[in-house]
């Protein structure tokens, strides 16, 4: 029994990490129409930026803020320098996906040239353990869950209650119409990249904290797990991404406990394939991945 409870606890932590990443990614897609395949690389780059600060003696909790900041800056830069010019030219969706993949390749190898292929870990104390009803988590893990919940709440508040959030949703629905309604879509899109970039950097840092040690090659792993959560929830749907993250996080950890850790990815993969066959639009979306009619 307790092994499942422990696995459930780990699943919550994984879900938290994935949720932060997946919400950022899905907002980029939903609002700017960009499938940013460089997202995983930006995550790991931010994790390394925090590692640099951490080595210089900066506390990891301050490092988290630096991770978010570097993610925001890097994402804004990638969009301004690369994606936006191609989008302005009217490059097709598929063209943009290829551009993003090329960007991911360049960024990850540039990072590899700088930091090398070795695994590194943060200098941090995991704190004491917290136990409740069979769940045993370190205080660092509890902190990750709290950060994720806070970030989700903040995104929810932003999209629902603020004018900026409404402007973002308007831009997502129809950029031209949004512009004619007096919304400065250029600034909104910059802001989207800053906010989602911050989520991306934050996600990279907590993912690195959670996994203990990390290397450049983890970037693509982050990307794949997050894509699974996004597809599961329905692309462009922040709440779907949260749901997808919980499902992927819990099923991978629980199946690792029930079967064996080797089948972790296989189970996540099976769920993904099932969803693509039975509900290709994702759990919480009406159109999402389906072909546009007409």
């Amino acid at each position, binding site marked *: 029994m307790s092994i499942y409870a422990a696995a459930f606890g780990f699943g919550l932590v994984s879900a938290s990490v994935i949720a932060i990443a997946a919400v950022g990614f899905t907002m980029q897609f939903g609002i700017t129409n960009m*499938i940013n*395949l460089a997202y995983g690389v930006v995550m790991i780059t931010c994790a390394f930026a925090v590692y640099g600060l951490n080595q210089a003696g900066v506390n990891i909790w301050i490092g988290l803020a630096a991770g978010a900041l570097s993610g925001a800056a890097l994402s804004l830069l990638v969009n301004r320098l*690369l994606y936006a*010019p*191609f989008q302005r030219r009217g*490059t097709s*969706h*598929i*063209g943009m*996906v*290829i*551009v993003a*993949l*090329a*960007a991911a*390749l*360049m960024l*990850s*190898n*540039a990072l*590899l*040239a700088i930091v*090398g*292929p070795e695994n590194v870990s943060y200098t941090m104390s995991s704190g004491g353990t917290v136990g409740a009803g069979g769940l045993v988590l370190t205080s660092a893990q509890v902190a990750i869950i709290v950060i994720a919940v806070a970030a989700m709440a903040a995104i929810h508040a932003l999209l629902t209650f603020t004018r900026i959030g409404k402007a973002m949703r308007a831009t997502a629905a129809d950029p031209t119409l949004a512009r004619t309604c007096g919304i400065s879509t250029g600034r909104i899109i910059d802001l989207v990249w800053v906010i989602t970039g911050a989520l991306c950097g934050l996600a990279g840092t907590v993912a690195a904290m959670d996994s203990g040690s990390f290397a450049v090659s983890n970037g*693509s792993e982050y990307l*794949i797990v997050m*894509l*699974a959560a996004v*597809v599961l929830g329905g*692309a462009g749907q922040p709440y779907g991404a949260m749901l997808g993250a919980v499902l992927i996080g819990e099923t991978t950890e629980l199946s690792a406990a029930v079967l064996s850790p*080797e089948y972790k*990815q*296989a189970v*996540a*993969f099976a769920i*993904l*394939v099932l969803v*693509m*066959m039975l509900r*290709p639009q994702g759990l919480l979306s*009406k159109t999402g*991945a*389906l*072909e*546009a*009619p*007409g």
Partner: protein
Amino acid sequence: MSSGVMYYLTTVLVYAGVDIMACIALNLQFGVAGLVNFGFILFQAAGAYAAAVLSMPPEGANGGFQQYVLGLQLPFPLPWLGGAAAGGLLAVPIGLVVLRRLRTDYQAIALLVISVIANTLITNARPFLNGAAGLSLVPPPLGDRINANSAGYQWLYVGLTALGCGVVLAAANRIVDSPFGRTLRAMREREPAAAALGKNLVMLKMVIFIAGGVIAGLSGAVLVGFIGVWAPATWLYPETIVIFAALIVGGRGNNLGALLGALLVPVGFEEVTRFLPQVGPPGLIPAMQWVAIGLLIIGFLWFRPRGTLPERRRVFADPFPGGAVRAQGPVGRGSEETVSADRARPLLAAERVERRFEGLRAVDGVSIEAVPGRITGLIGPNGAGKSTLLAVLAGTLPASAGRILLDGADVTRLPAYRRAQRGLVRTFQLSSEFAQLTVLENLLVAVPRHRGDSLAGALRGKAYWWADERPAVLRARALLARFGMSAQESEYGGTLSGGQKKLLEIMRALMLGPRVLLLDEPMAGVHPSLVEKIAACLESLRDEGLAILMVEHELSMVDRLCDPVIVMAQGQVIGRGSMPALRRQREIVDAYLAG
């Protein structure tokens, strides 16, 4: 030649052959058919693994230091054929999951995810294909008869690779140059329009996905026979990006471009860096190589998006100099069928058809008919649901409720392409030309039951299908002459004016030989002189016995051509009859005609 140089040369040649095959395969999928296979390398890997376990001895043979399935020790060329088959077979389940309903960009992402996860699975599941360590000591083909380390064997292998390449290239050329290739390109350019012309998109995608899988599998088999080892580290997903880079640099859609790209990117890059001085820490140069490949992709997409050797424009030589092309004559399917049709019975009938979008009833219980020999007009204010109704009738959108009968048969559940094959053909409100096909090709795509419009027909070569092609070209040229567009025959569809695109679409629909024609604002944005031509053509089509349903805002044209006329507002039919009768009805005038 020193033996070192010789071995180097043969190795480079075999690698070049493998990369050429891979690039050709991806060119068929991505360059020609527009299928973004981000999982491409998985199919090469499947071929390599299959060829390895088919040629290797049972797993205990080498002291059992590696674990794997099969171990059949089959003689050459069976492992190569098995590799090709494995690539094709793997494409079936993956294609069925990914290609049926997903949007194009999602397909790309799904294939990427599948490729990455498959690699993780093979890495972790040791008993299947020896896990992370991979397979080694794969016997070289014919190695039991010829010493595999001899110079003669090296050149023999180069020869066999070249043979494989030659076969692949010949087959790919036949596909690209055939009516089937033309259909694939039409699908790449605009999927809904291709479906509206009777093309089964899912089938087309599956066929080319499997064909590409077969070639990719063969390339893997050739490679593993030469290098003797295969492990998950050799087929990580960035390898797929290299093949994409090769196509983007070389020129997608063009087999020669794919060949050039294979020589420039995977082969050229690898070899150039081999001769660079070793600078910096180990690993720096490979990392920079990947950065350079990324830069190459982005640079080409920005400065030369169609590649070094772009897809070439296909111009048909004139087989009848002197312009002996008939400019007149029936343009529908030979008149004998349609004229004899019963003119009183409706050919197309919709019964209480509904289409709901979430809460909105865009089409709300509409019953209409289209009768042979008449042009039925469909008018109403913007947002009345006219275009949605047309889309539901043609099958572009499924009906939420109601029945649609074509010549008495229920077609409500049939997909758009099946309805088009039965003679129910639509045009689109927004121009929907195949931009990178010439005007003539745009028309030829629509030809039904063309012998060259299938993979098998294409592979049998031009001699097999030319008998269908020539009359089709003549018919297309007759149509072009009738609409005064002969001069534009070899221009790309994308370069036409808005009005010309409308004409092109009508001609394209006529090439199909329709029985029922659904026209969505055929005269919107068309120059007045062309409007007259379209009107005259529609009149003669009507007199030939075609049933036409036409959405149009230009009321003078509706007055002239349409009888009866159906008025729609807010998803419902609010009136029907002749135009003069409708003009006398107060509520209809208020709802639409006066506005």
